[in-house]
Structures are given as C-alpha cells and as structure tokens.
C-alpha cells in the first residue's frame, strides 16, 4: 500500500494534476476566511463593471490630509485620458473636411490642435457625407474639450441649507494627491462585476466550491451504485445479472443527458437545489461504471485466489469484500475521479440550458456561465464575466483527468513510458 502511494507520487502527470487541484481546493477554503463579503451581494449599480480598484471619490476629496506632488507628466496623462488618439484622428478628419490644409494640422501637438479646433469648429457647418451620429459625436467631443488645457483648480461647493446658495467649501488643485491607503473606502474588484453587479471573483470562488461538491456528491453516488450493481451482477451471474444488465441496457440506450433534462424539468425550478441536482446527476451516470466493474468481476471470479477463498469456507459477502473489491480498488478510485469531473461538466451543461440549481441561493460554475450568456457578456466583450469561469472548469477537469492518466500509468505498468 505504502509502495503504491510512493509510486503514485512519482508519476509526473499525477503530481501536476494533484497540485492544480489542491491549489483550487485551498483557494476555495482559504479565500472566504480572508474576504468575508457574501458572494451573492450586489455591490454595483450598473452591470459589468470592468476589473479594477475602485476608490471612493467622496472620501478622496474629503480626505483631511492632502499632499502636493509636482509631477511633470501629470498634465499630459490627464489630457491623454480625455483626448485619445482616436479623437485626435477624428478631429483631423473634420478639420480636413472643413478645408484646413494638411500641413497646418499636427495631431501630436495638443495645444496647437486644440487652438486650431477652437478657431475652426462650427457645429452648424454641414459637411457632405457626415451622418447625424457623427455630428453628435463631434458636438460631444467639442464639449469635453472645454477646459482641457486649463490649469485652474476645481472648486468644491455645497448648498447652504438656509439660502440654498452654493458656498465654496474647498479647492482641488491639479497637483493635489491623496494617499490611497488613507481613503477609507476602496473595493478591489479583480474580475469586475457581473450582470447583477456582483463581485465576480468572490462569486467564482464560491461557485467553484459548490460545483466541486456537486461533482463529489454526484461522483460518490454514481460510483457506489455502479460498484454495487457491478459487483452483484458480475459475481452472482444468472438471474440477478440478467435483471441488472436489463436496467443497465435501458439506461445505456436512453442518452443520460436527455434523461437528466427530463428529470430536472419535472422537479421544477423551486425544488432544484444544488444537492438535488447532484443526486440526480449521480443517479443517471452510474451505467458505465457498473458495466466496467461487472466485466472486471467476471474475470476475477474464476481466479484461483477466489477459488481458494471459497475452499476456505468464506461467505459470498466476505469474498466480495476481501477477494474482489481490493483488486478493483484502483479502478474504482480512477472511476470516481472521472465521475467527479464529469459531474461538474454535466452540472455546467444543465445550468447553461437553464435547468441547473435555482438561481437565488448559490452560484455554481454552470449558473455563472448561464448568467453570462443570458446577459450577452460574450457579445458585449465583457470577458471577465465568463472567461474566468471557463478557465476554472477547464482547470478542474484538466487536473482530474491528468491525475487519472497518472494513476492509470501506475496501476497498468504496460502504459508506462
């Protein structure tokens, strides 16, 4: 036994798979201890906030300690963030259309460009071939350029509660800085928010945990049913075998996914918790395990060591437990790993078509995909709402299949290279 473990941990493939899976498990376990936000809390108004660090503006402005930093490129960066390269090209295009010669326009010199623009832009001018949308764009652009070159401070004002007149309460200079560490409200959203405005990362970690437990429950149920039926039908043979194989054949010819859809649908949206889905998946995916176990038991039951055990007066139950089961153990472990990873995939499949666990209680990887799809994250290019989920599913199944291949090579020396 000890030797087998040593062998397993010498297999490179197994180790890689194992490390990935353990890393995922540790993340699932440790992350909630460090970051205690409820995973399904709606944190943003508006959907699909891009990934980033969100600092509260009110707190930043209101911060008592303000620092002055003189940085040379601050102004340039500020202008850049409001006047992009695309905008400059658009300005050039308008100016050319308005009859300014190519030589006068230098889009890299911000001051000259703005001056040229201010002198020439006329929103009432109609240029041939320009659509209404384009014209509106230029109007918006023109408005946003106001004060771009200004170096004056912004004035903060608050309404006087009595007169209602605005009173100056402070000034924000262009050289004013606040230390982010001193801003009391900062929220890091490494993967942004989803369609409901929920923190995708926290949700993803929770969903991974739920999906893994769905896989585990489904895997254990499927493997145990398959193992018990396989053992009984393989060892006893005869009538028991006929009946079990009849049921098995029935399940084989009906695609289990169709069955799963029908069962899920008939359970109804309200009753479908994550656990119920796991049980349903387990109950429909034992067929191949049962078949394989049966085949192995049939080849084992005529071996001499089983005959010897019979001659030693052991009961059928004893023979199954000590002479058959240990010989199957390695196979069963591998079947379990495969069943877990396929359980996770099946849950994802079901959830994508909207028949997964109900959406109000827990997130699962499949549900996150489902939400992403319904709210068109993939069309709108909001990659953070679905791509990390895809990567997570791929990583889980990849690590498990890798572990399985590694185990296969240990248990079947013929496959070793």
């Amino acid at each position, binding site marked *: 036994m000890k030797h087998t473990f040593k062998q397993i941990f010498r297999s490179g493939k197994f180790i890689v798979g194992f490390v990935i899976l353990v890393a995922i498990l540790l993340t699932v376990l440790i992350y909630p201890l460090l970051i205690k936000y409820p995973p399904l809390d709606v944190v943003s108004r508006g959907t699909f906030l891009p990934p980033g660090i969100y600092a509260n503006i009110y707190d930043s402005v209101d911060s008592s300690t303000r620092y002055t930093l003189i940085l040379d490129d601050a102004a340039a960066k500020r202008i850049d963030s409001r006047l992009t390269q695309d905008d400059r090209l658009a300005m050039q295009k308008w100016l050319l259309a308005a009859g300014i010669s190519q030589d006068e326009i230098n889009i890299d010199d911000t001051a000259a460009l703005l001056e040229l623009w201010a002198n020439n832009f006329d929103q009432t001018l109609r240029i041939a071939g320009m659509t209404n949308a384009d014209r509106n764009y230029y109007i918006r652009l023109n408005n946003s350029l106001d004060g771009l070159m200004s170096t004056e401070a912004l004035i903060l004002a608050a309404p006087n509660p009595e007169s209602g007149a605005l009173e100056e309460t402070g000034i924000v200079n262009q050289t004013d800085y606040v230390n982010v560490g001193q801003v009391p409200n900062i929220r890091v959203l490494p993967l942004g928010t989803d369609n409901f405005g929920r923190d995708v990362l926290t949700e993803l970690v929770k969903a991974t945990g739920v999906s893994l437990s769905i896989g585990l429950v489904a895997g254990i149920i499927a493997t145990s049913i398959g193992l018990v039926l396989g053992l009984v039908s393989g060892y006893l043979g005869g009538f028991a075998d006929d009946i079990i194989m009849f049921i098995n054949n029935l399940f084989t010819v009906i695609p289990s996914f169709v069955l799963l859809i029908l069962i899920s649908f008939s359970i109804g949206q309200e009753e479908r918790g994550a656990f119920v889905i796991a049980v349903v998946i387990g109950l429909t995916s034992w067929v191949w395990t049962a078949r394989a176990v049966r085949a192995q038991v049939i080849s084992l039951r005529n071996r*001499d*060591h089983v005959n*010897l055990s*019979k*001659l030693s007066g052991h009961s059928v139950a004893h023979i199954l437990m000590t002479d058959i089961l240990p010989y199957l153990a390695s196979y069963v472990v591998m079947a379990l790993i495969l069943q877990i990873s396929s359980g996770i995939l099946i849950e994802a499949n079901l959830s994508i078509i909207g028949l997964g666990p109900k959406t109000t209680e827990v997130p699962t990887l499949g549900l996150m995909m489902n939400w992403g799809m319904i709210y068109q994250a993939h069309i709108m290019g909001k990659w953070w709402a679905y791509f990390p989920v895809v990567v997570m599913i791929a990583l889980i199944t990849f690590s498990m299949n890798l572990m399985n291949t590694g185990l296969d090579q240990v248990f079947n020396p013929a496959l070793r290279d």
Partner: protein
Amino acid sequence: MKSDTEILSGKGLTKTFGFGAQRTVAVDHVDFSFKKGEIISIVGESGSGKTTLAKMLLGLLKPTEGEILFEGKPRDIRSYRKKKEYWKNIQAIFQDPFSSYNIFRKVDTVLLDCIRMRGGRRLPYEQKRAMMQEACSFVNLKFDELTNKYPFELSGGQQQRLMIARIFLLKPKILLADEPTSMIDACSRATILDMLMDLRNEIGMTPIFITHDIGLAYYVSDTVYIMEHGVFVESGSADDVILNPQETYTKRLLNDVPKLHEEWDLSTV
C-alpha cells in the same frame, strides 16, 4: 495405504458449456471410482477437460449431468453450510502459486482461515500460533519470518509449500493437486513432491494429481487415468498404463515425451 473403501466416485459425469452451435462438451459421461488412500493421477493435454473435471470434483462447477458420490453417498452441496462441510473433506492446490493467493492478505491470515475452518475460531492466539508454527515447520518454512509478509514476497516454491502448510492445517480426506509443480523449478519440484507424500502419510489423505506431465504421473501415482477430449481413454495401475499402454492415444502421448534412455523418435510426427 491403499484400501478398497470408495472415497470419491462419479457416474456419467458431464459438463457442457454454451448452447446450440456453440455447445462444447468439456467432460463427457465420465465414470470413475477413487479408493481411499491411493494416489491418483489424471493425465491429459490442454483442452482434455481435466481442469473442468477437477473443478466439478471440488464443487466449484456444477455438473451438467451425472452424479458424484462422496464416501458412497451422493454428494450434497446445495447450501452454503453443506458446501463448507464438504470443503472440510476436499481441498486443492492450484497450478500457479502466484495467482493462488489474495495479494492483499498476509501469510498468517491465510493460515488462520484454515484453523477457523477446522472449528478453531475461539482458540487462544497462543495455541493458534503454535498450530501455525507446526504447519510451517512441516514444510520447512519459518513462521516467525512469514507473519508479516505477503505471499507474493515469497518464491514460487515457498508459496507452493505454504499451500501445503495450509493443507496440513486443514487435514482434508482428499487433496486435488492441479499441476502443483508445473510452474516451479525442477529442484523445488522434488521438495514439493516429497512434502506431499509425507503429508499423505501423516494425515492419511487421498491425493489426486491433475497433470499434463506423464512422467510426473508415473513417478507419483498408484492409479493413472488418461483423459482425451473429455473421456477417460485408459486407466489402471501406473506400471500397466505407462509401461504397457494399450490405447493409441496413450502410446502417442508416451512417444511424444523426450526420454533419457530411449531414443526419441522424431520421425513420427
């Protein structure tokens, strides 16, 4: 040693496998009568049905037809309890020692099973230990070195000796030895055969050898049965059958075996 009491006999014993066109007759209406104390050999080539016959004798396979009489009475092994009772009287040694043991169970559990089978389940461990030591020393193994070992850590010869130690503890009336020496080396073969003969004298059992090796059959047995295609073609005392074969099949079999003192006639193939 040989007596006239019948210990195991069969009438019209038949075993067929498969149905319809696939139907094959492995053992075809075989009659035999094994006397208590004699050493019997059943000789046949592969596919002659000798292993099927052995399994039927052991009660591991159900005969399709015919009956087996044990000590003159029809054998009854319909329930688990009766089977267990029958297996106290008949035991086996298999051909391949490497596949005969459960690789997950240690040597002492194999022997403890035998003590339990003989009704010694409640004996104090010290007494069980003494019994196991006695059995192991009978086959020249050191029990104290074996307790924590797995059978597959022993050599083929040692495993086969452990099998004999098992028989020593079980003390059955009949021992079916299915090619007990074909997988082990020539030098260990002599040891195993010696031990089996000693054991026979010690506990008065009736050994039945199932073998393809006509030389071995001649060397060990009193009575030889030659089996071809599921039937006994010739039987009788070892000297009669081997030195004076009557049937062409027996003659051919003998002719095909290389010998030391006779020319091996290769022209007759």
